[in-house]
């Protein structure tokens, strides 16, 4: 209940009241009041300062939380990124000229580490990789600082590294013995003439490999669907197409498919990475036995083609076979 007081004196927006209990109060009013008039002053809600204080405290806490570095990502060229628990870059430390060159014109503060770190790695590859014609080694270290905040930041960094591995076709980040230490490695280049050819092809079709790798499920599914629909001719055609694709994959993506698999299973990756570069057939085996069921469905004939192709090292021969079969089938 609002207590009414008597107006003793009033101005345009103020009044002096005698309140019940004998208290003289100066209050703000909306307009001028008459002397002697009863007036109930508007009591300011008691919770207002509490709410204001709470909002202030929350704002401060959030800002402190935002600015606190939860995890670090250290790149060997001399860039150290501090990431908060929300995955935002809040600290950038640069050491050396290379680090400065990497970060010039690249706004990083406050951005998501998933955006910053891959970009930074790309830049590093461009600047270091061209100068040194060998495998580029970039060490990325993510270090948790506080628990569980540090783990949250660490998770963001790891996520960004996984994303980088998925998107990048030239190399990958390998998790070393220390789970928080990542090593950038270019894809292995097999020794020998065959290996050189393969690597050349893989260089030429570097992007396409990735494309075929991604489109692989489509090509696998399409023939399958046709098989369900179609008759004999289509089956033959499909087998030819399948074999062609498989051959292409086996020739060109021998290492890449293997790598893709290994990216998904880092444990396997480590073991295959330690193998010699001449283990491309081994990768083929992994490819055939591992993820793609198409190789299994195609049967041994296709695998035989694969092996022949590997021996010949030519794609055209493989591609001509299905066309002849098609012609024959069409004649029939």
């Amino acid at each position: 209940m609002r207590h009414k007081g008597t107006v003793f004196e009033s101005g345009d927006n103020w009044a002096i009241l005698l309140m019940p209990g004998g208290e003289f109060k100066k209050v703000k009013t909306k307009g001028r009041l008459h002397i002697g008039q009863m007036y109930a002053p508007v009591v300011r809600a008691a919770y207002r300062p509490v709410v204001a204080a709470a909002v202030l405290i929350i704002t401060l806490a959030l800002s402190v939380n935002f600015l606190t570095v939860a995890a670090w990502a250290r790149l060997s060229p001399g860039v150290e990124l501090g990431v908060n628990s929300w995955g935002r870059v809040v600290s950038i430390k640069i050491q050396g000229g290379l680090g400065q060159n990497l970060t010039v014109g690249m706004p990083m503060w406050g951005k998501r580490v998933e955006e910053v770190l891959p970009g930074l790695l790309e830049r590093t590859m461009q600047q270091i990789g061209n100068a040194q014609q060998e495998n580029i080694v970039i060490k990325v270290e993510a270090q948790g600082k506080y628990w569980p905040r540090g783990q949250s930041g660490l998770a963001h960094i790891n996520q960004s590294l996984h994303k980088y591995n998925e998107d990048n076709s030239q190399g990958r980040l390998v998790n070393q013995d220390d789970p928080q230490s990542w090593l950038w490695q270019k894809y292995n280049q097999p020794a020998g003439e065959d290996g050189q050819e393969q690597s050349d092809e893989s260089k030429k079709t570097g992007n396409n490999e990735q494309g075929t790798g991604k489109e692989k499920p489509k090509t696998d599914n399409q023939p399958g669907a046709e098989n369900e629909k179609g008759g004999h001719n289509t089956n033959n055609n499909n087998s030819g197409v399948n074999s062609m694709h498989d051959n292409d994959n086996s020739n060109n993506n021998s290492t890449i498919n293997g790598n893709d698999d290994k990216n998904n299973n880092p444990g396997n990756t480590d073991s295959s990475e330690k193998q010699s570069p001449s283990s491309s057939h081994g990768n083929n085996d992994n490819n055939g036995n591992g993820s793609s069921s198409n190789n299994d469905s195609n049967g041994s004939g296709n695998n035989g083609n694969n092996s022949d192709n590997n021996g010949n090292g030519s794609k055209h021969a493989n591609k001509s076979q299905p066309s002849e079969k098609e012609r024959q089938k069409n004649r029939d």
Partner: protein
Amino acid sequence: MTAADNSQWSSVIEEQWKRYSEGQEDALEELPKLMDFSLRVASKTCGCFIHRDDEEAGIAQLALWEAVQKYVPHKGSLLLYIGKVVRNRLIDFKRKQTAQRRFLSGEFYPRIHETDLDYQIETIIDDMARSQEIERLSNELQPMGIVFKELPEYSPRQAKTRKEALTAAKRIAEDRELLEFLNGKKMLPLILLETRYGINRKLLDRYRKFIITTALIISGDYNCLKVYLTLEEGRRGSEA
């Protein structure tokens, strides 16, 4: 002002009006009070403070004279009649003043119902009684160098302290010697209060103006204002 005071003032005005209507033109001694009354009615009608210089104040004065001239005793109370006339004239004035739709629809100021008008007039009369008391108190405090503007500053905010200060004021009001000292010398009898009633000197010094004001209200003829000081006493009494 109590209901009895209201009716008393009303009867005084009606008696004066009778003499005025009989031909004694200087019989309306309460005319300034009636002016204030009509201004209050104007304020209530317009929903804002009306200064004496405002156009509405002139309308209200004209309406007052009109009511005094046209009043017929058997139609009811004079004050009520004055209130109705002032209100109606102001509404007419506002309608003429502007042709805006919101005025015509009565959006700008709320219409006062007939039943409400009685209550409003009673309220206005009470307000006027209080304003007279406040004016008297202000005149009484002037020689002691106390103005109302200072009182919030020197008024104790803690309920406990306020209670102690009011007790001191009550002692002064009840003790004739202390009251004479206050009225004569226009200052607080600090030593007497301290020695006779054991009231803290610091309290007396700090809240001197508040204690003087409340002592004058309690001891004087301020029936409307006393309520604000005795009400607390009653509460305290019921608590005890």
